[in-house]
């Protein structure tokens, strides 16, 4: 591409148009740029526009954004096999770009600078340092020659982003080579600029406008320090420890009122720097404690006093959490004795922990305004960086070495808070909130069955005295935060609360499902759901009979909750509905329940937004269907009339998110039907064989499941409708891909299970051809195992003769070849009880009946086959299965727009295809005995020759177990 003025002109025109409000010219411009981007020289041209200081600022900025993306997608095409629509940037142009970009970035206005900085970072991720040796020296020389902090900021920002990889990649020779290069080049300049900026800070104490960029630059230096020191302590830093630590100390104790922010949400530059320093000293404390120990006492004092007067405003959150984290690290280390005195412990707990645990205005606001975020933080552990969580971590850290003292102190605090609350419940509700928070949070986080206890309080007593009164409160909307705390307590300690007590508060808990507060009714639903999951000796703690008395109000409240504002698609509520349906006895009201679910389903079909909610909704539907059919199969007709209208909507409107669910529900309905199937199902068969549906990966498992149901319940209809060819077409499509071949076998196996050989015989040659083609061209362990299972099933269902003949029809003697090369060597890798049984029974049949194997010329094959069968039957799976997994095909997983989600409630039960055989071991021994009595003296010698020693012993043991002898 010629970089003529004309071209630049038209490009700049295009960039202007990409900003146009009118979609027509915008799209045109975008299309033009996409095309132009494939031409060599495009990147340089755009970069020219970016640097054109005479151009309109808007155009330059749009060009900068475009350049950033251009570089991101076209610098290196990561996967050479993937069909990429992008043409990579030619190498000479790359060199040109690398020569220009740094200079441009450092002189550009801020907005453009940040785009170019990102572009530079993404180039570096490929080329730096090996293929871009000039970058670091250039950065260093600009750094030392510049006194403009805008430029310095740009340099440090760039260095920070290109060094970031050192703090998350694993050690490797390559990483160390790069790191060493960066250390050689930048360790000394970093210290220089840090000291130099420090002097400027000292001499400009009363000029906030000057100080701010200086502090920002220091913060970046600290981040770079972190990256360079992350892997291990580099020599340079160890040699200059005094200088670095001295500076760190200086800033941790620095104050300057002029730099305070007025906005309570905005972190000041000084605090940003302090937080970065806390991270650095925490890193040293964790990893280089020996070299760091001389500085430790000083820093502990610094951080300590910093925390003593750090404000509770949100703008100080980051500083507070990083500072607390440092103290936590110290408390767990060998230097914990710094905190050993009773007075110190007391101060930490009272002046640092408790204030940070107390609920703040911001938390209350979150409780009211953003229930999703509040729950995520409060209940689901995404609060790893909050003050509350960090303060609790500090308590846990102190408990490592001072458990008794800490526990007794906190028991006292909790008691004190409760007393204060009791003195004035309205005024002092936060005291109780804090008490419950501490009790819950200081127990280890446990999901399984809830926490096993706490040392702070007696759970049962606390429950009775503090929690039950909250739950019994008259007004369910009064002090919702405390009620939510109470429910969180019940959920957390659910397994510790005796059943009778829990049952007694059940009605109280149910009331809160319709409380106004979203957090509160979500917690109530979640609490019920978790209680219903509790087990005693594998039996549910709350049996259907226990729940029966509350069932009506519980369901009524749950469905009412879904009408509350902002909770129309509340996943906690829907999950609870699902749990109730799957665990309680809903017999008489099932139809009514299903109708309610169908109505909701009809609503969400219009605009599916919340995947969790929808998932539980379908689970709930599947649960009702499953439970009801177990009780009364006749109910299916009523269910069909409720469900079909929505199912039709999903299929007709092509609601892709729901299709996999609907196919599973349909399969569930079909499976519960006795043939013949009503015509409405048959009419759905043809569309479900439509290939466009099968092209969506998320549909495949569900459609396979559905097709299996059809094959099972309507084989005649499939044959008469001439749809068997299509079914086999689906099988063929699935078998060719290694990610779906097992699904293809599911179909094929079901065909064999349900169709006679007569029906299948016209196709069998073609089927073997497809399978052997795949075997030849892409042999995977998974495929071979599936092939053996399928062949075994065919032997058992159709007999060994037709299997052998149909294979040999493809090529003479092929059956024996397959046996010798595929079947026998891999038989012992089969896993799964049913699969093992099936394959051993089929092998036994072949061994005792197949003339191919009984021929004198096949003696060795017979012996090896028996050896494999015995391995399969007598050796434990861990021993015989080498866990030969295939290399995963990553590509095949990419691009799941919709992800297949299996419905647990619509799960399928496996059936044994060889029910007539009770014990495959006995079957083998009996068959062998019969066979050997036909040819006395023939087999013992074969066995001696071909069976491995442990298998000889194993077989002998089997014979003696079943009292049989081989002659």
């Amino acid at each position: 591409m010629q970089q003529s003025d004309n071209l630049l002109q038209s490009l700049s025109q295009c960039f202007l148009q990409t900003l146009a409000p009118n979609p027509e010219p915008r799209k045109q411009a975008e299309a033009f740029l996409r095309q132009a981007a494939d031409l060599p020289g495009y990147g340089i041209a755009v970069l020219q526009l970016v640097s054109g200081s005479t151009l309109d600022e808007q155009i330059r900025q749009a060009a900068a954004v475009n350049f950033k993306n251009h570089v991101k997608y076209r610098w290196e095409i990561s996967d050479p096999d993937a069909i990429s629509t992008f043409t990579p940037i030619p190498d000479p142009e790359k060199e040109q770009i690398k020569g220009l970009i740094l200079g441009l970035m450092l002189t550009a206005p801020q907005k453009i600078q940040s785009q170019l900085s990102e572009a530079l970072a993404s180039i570096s991720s490929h080329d730096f340092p090996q293929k871009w040796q000039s970058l670091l020296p250039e950065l260093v020389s600009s750094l030392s020659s510049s006194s403009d902090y805008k430029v310095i900021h740009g340099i440090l920002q760039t260095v920070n982003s290109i060094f970031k990889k050192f703090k998350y990649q694993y050690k490797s020779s390559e990483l160390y080579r790069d790191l060493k290069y960066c250390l050689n080049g930048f360790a000394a300049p970093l210290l220089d600029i840090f000291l130099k900026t420090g002097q400027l800070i000292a001499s400009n104490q009363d000029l906030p406008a000057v100080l701010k960029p200086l502090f920002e630059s220091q913060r970046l230096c600290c981040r770079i320090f972190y990256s360079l020191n992350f892997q291990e302590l580099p020599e340079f830093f160890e040699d200059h420890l005094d200088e670095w630590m001295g500076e760190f100390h200086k800033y941790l104790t620095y104050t300057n009122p002029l730099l305070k922010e007025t906005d309570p949400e905005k972190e000041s530059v000084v605090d940003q720097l302090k937080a970065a320093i806390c991270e650095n000293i925490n890193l040293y404390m964790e990893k280089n404690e020996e070299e760091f120990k001389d500085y430790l006492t000083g820093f502990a004092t610094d951080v300590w006093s910093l925390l003593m007067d750090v404000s509770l405003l949100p703008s100080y959150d980051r500083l507070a959490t990083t500072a607390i984290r440092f103290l936590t690290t110290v408390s767990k280390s060998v230097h914990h004795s710094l905190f050993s005195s009773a007075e110190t412990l007391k101060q930490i707990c009272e002046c640092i922990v408790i204030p940070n645990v107390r609920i703040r205005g911001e938390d209350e606001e979150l409780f009211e305004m953003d229930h999703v975020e509040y729950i995520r933080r409060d209940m689901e552990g995404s609060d790893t960086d909050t003050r509350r969580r960090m303060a609790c971590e500090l308590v846990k850290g102190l408990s490592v070495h001072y458990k008794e003292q800490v526990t007794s102190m906190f028991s006292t605090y909790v008691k004190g808070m409760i007393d204060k609350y009791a003195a004035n419940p309205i005024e002092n509700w936060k005291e109780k909130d804090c008490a419950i928070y501490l009790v819950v949070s200081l127990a280890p986080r446990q999901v399984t069955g809830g926490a096993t206890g706490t040392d702070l309080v007696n759970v049962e007593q606390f429950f009775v005295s503090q929690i039950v009164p909250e739950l019994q409160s008259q007004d369910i909307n009064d002090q919702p935060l405390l009620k939510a705390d109470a429910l969180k307590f019940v959920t957390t300690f659910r397994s510790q609360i005796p059943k009778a007590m829990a049952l007694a508060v059940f009605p109280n808990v149910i009331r809160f499902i319709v409380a106004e507060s979203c957090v509160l009714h979500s917690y109530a639903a979640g609490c019920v759901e978790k209680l219903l999951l509790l087990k005693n000796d594998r039996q549910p703690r709350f049996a259907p009979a226990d729940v029966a008395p509350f069932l009506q109000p519980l369901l009524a409240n749950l469905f009412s909750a879904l009408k509350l504002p902002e909770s129309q698609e509340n996943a906690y509520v829907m999950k609870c509905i699902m749990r109730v349906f799957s665990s309680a006895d809903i017999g008489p009201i099932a139809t009514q329940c299903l109708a309610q679910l169908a109505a909701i389903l009809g609503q969400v079909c219009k605009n599916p937004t919340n995947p969790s909610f929808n998932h539980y909704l379908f689970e709930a539907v599947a649960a009702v269907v499953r439970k009801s059919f177990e009780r009364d199969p006749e109910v299916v007709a009523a269910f069909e009339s409720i469900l079909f209208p929505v199912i039709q909507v999903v299929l007709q409107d092509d609601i892709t998110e729901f299709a996999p669910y609907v196919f599973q529900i349909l399969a569930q309905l079909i499976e519960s039907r006795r043939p013949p199937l009503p015509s409405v199902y048959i009419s759905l068969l043809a569309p479900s064989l439509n290939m466009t549906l099968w092209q969506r990966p998320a549909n495949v498992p569900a459609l396979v499941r559905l097709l299996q149901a059809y094959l099972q319940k309507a084989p005649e209809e499939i044959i008469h409708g001439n749809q068997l060819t299509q079914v086999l077409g689906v099988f063929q499509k699935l078998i060719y891909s290694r990610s779906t071949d097992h699904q293809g076998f599911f179909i094929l196996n079901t065909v064999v299970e349900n169709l006679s050989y007569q029906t299948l015989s016209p196709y069998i040659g073609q089927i073997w051809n497809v399978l052997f083609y795949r075997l030849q061209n892409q042999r995977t362990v998974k495929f071979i195992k599936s092939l053996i299972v399928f062949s075994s099933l065919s032997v058992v269902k159709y007999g060994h003769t037709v299997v052998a003949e149909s294979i040999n029809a493809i090529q003479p003697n092929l059956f024996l070849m397959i046996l010798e090369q595929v079947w026998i060597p891999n038989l012992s890798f089969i896993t799964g009880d049913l699969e093992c049984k099936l394959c051993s029974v089929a092998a036994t049949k072949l061994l005792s009946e197949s003339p191919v194997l009984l021929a004198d010329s096949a003696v060795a094959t017979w012996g090896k086959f028996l050896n494999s069968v015995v391995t399969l039957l007598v050796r434990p799976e861990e021993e015989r299965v080498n866990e030969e997994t295939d290399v995963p095909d990553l590509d095949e997983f990419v691009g799941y727009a919709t992800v297949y989600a299996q419905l647990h409630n619509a799960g399928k039960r496996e059936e044994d295809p060889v029910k007539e055989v009770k014990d495959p071991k006995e079957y083998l021994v009996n068959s062998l005995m019969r066979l050997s009595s036909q040819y006395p003296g023939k087999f013992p010698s074969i066995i001696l020759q071909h069976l491995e020693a442990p298998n000889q012993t194993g077989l002998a043991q089997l014979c003696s177990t079943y009292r049989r002898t081989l002659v």
Partner: protein
Amino acid sequence: MESSGVASHAPGKREQIKTSVGAVAGQRRRKLAVTLGKERRDAVVRGKRIRRADTNDDSEFMELAEAAVDDENAYKQLEEEVSQAVQNLKLALSTSGKGAATKKLEALRKLRQLLSFNSAPPIHVAVASGAVPILVDCLAFGSSEEQLLEAAWCLTNIASGELDQTRAVLPAVPLLIAHLGERSAVHVAEQCAWAAGNIAGEGEDMREILLSQGALLSLSRLIFSAVPSVARTSCWAMSNLIKGPSARAATELMSIKGIPECLVQHLIKGDEALVAEVAWILVYVTVLSDSCTAVLIHAGVLPPLFQWLASSEQTTVLTPILRTLGNIVSGENAKTDAVILAGHNVSGGLCGALLRCLKAPHRNLQKEGAWVVSNIAAGSMEHKRMLFTSNLLDRLVHLLKAAAFDVKKEAAYALGNLCVTPKQAGTEPHPILEHLSSLVARGCVKEFVNLVRLPDAEASRLGIQFIELVMRSLPNGQGPKLVEIEDGIAALETLQFHENEELRNMATVLLDGYFGDDYGLEEEYGSKVVDGNAGGNDVSDYPSWRRKGTVGV
């Protein structure tokens, strides 16, 4: 459906990375060729060495040089003296006639004294004043032994400086190498070897220059020397020369006739100072070449190594020996067997000797020792059994609980490796339940949970892999409960936003798989109905055979 929300909805993605969770440690790690950190203070200073003058070397500059260490004015004066000395030497070289040779030597010695009386002489001044070309002149063939020695000494100390100073010495390389030869006086050859060692210590490119000019062969002859200091200096220089990262030089050295045997003899007969230098050669050979390692073993290197390992108190000796052994046992199992066999000659055997290091007061020895153990623990089942039943186990558990970070991490590698069956190509290791249960009973879960939280990607990965193993393997679903009690959930949660993608994914998989929304369903519906993903006990990367519908009924 977006992949947000209930995370259990992504079976495809989950299976794809499943393998990485299952693949517990099970790996041997060689030391990386690149080092960033300071060589530990208690180890000998390796890279470059300055040669200090004897204190009885009578000189007018002695006091000045000593004062210059912490007196700025004295240092300035010293700088001027150096500059002056170089000028004098130039002058002495240009004059001829009676007594010129003596004057020359006198001037040369003065310069050398200035450059060797303290540990940080002003060599930059010497370089800037143009000392190197005249020193090269002084190395001319036919010069007196004394002159050669003094010149080589000056060059040695200049080469011990920073990159630029070392580089300045390059013009002297051909002559330095020439004087390594047999015809040189022994102390001259030694001094030239020293200079070459300093140059080689600078870096890969310097080593290449030396190698291309034939330094290796000349230097190797000095290794055979019966003079202890010559053997020692040449071994040290050689260890610098073969550092790599290319294995070429090390391979070439080992192919020189008699070298492997000579090194073994030094190990048997030498003093600790010589043994330390020899052992560093062994370190580089064993890390760079498997076949050369075999040659060394064949030459009988292991028995004397064990004698020292079991008896020496010097970290300078023990450190390179541990490195060497660690490198050897990171190879195939047969080599580990050879190491174990050789260990039988000392009391307590291999395990006893290693235990001694793990109990040493030096952190670095503990770390190197634990690293060796971790490599043995990645070996065959027999090796794992041996370690497991030895008295090393208690010590490792102790180190895991109480040691400094880097030692702790090595101990964790060792213990983690003990809990899985040997790694085979393309397969995932299985747990060794007996070992795992024993470690769990000793309270190791808590320690591995703590590793997860550390700001170190490897430590986090080790922690999470061990946790995965515990949850997957312990019978009756005890695993997840144990992990919960040790606050493992909170620890895993800290990784969910980690910048390392693998760690992030592993944490998410474990949290979803064991503690996610589906948790409990298995118990409720029986394992057959529940997707194998949710139970987390499925190690394959494709749908389990025990899952629904395989036989298609």
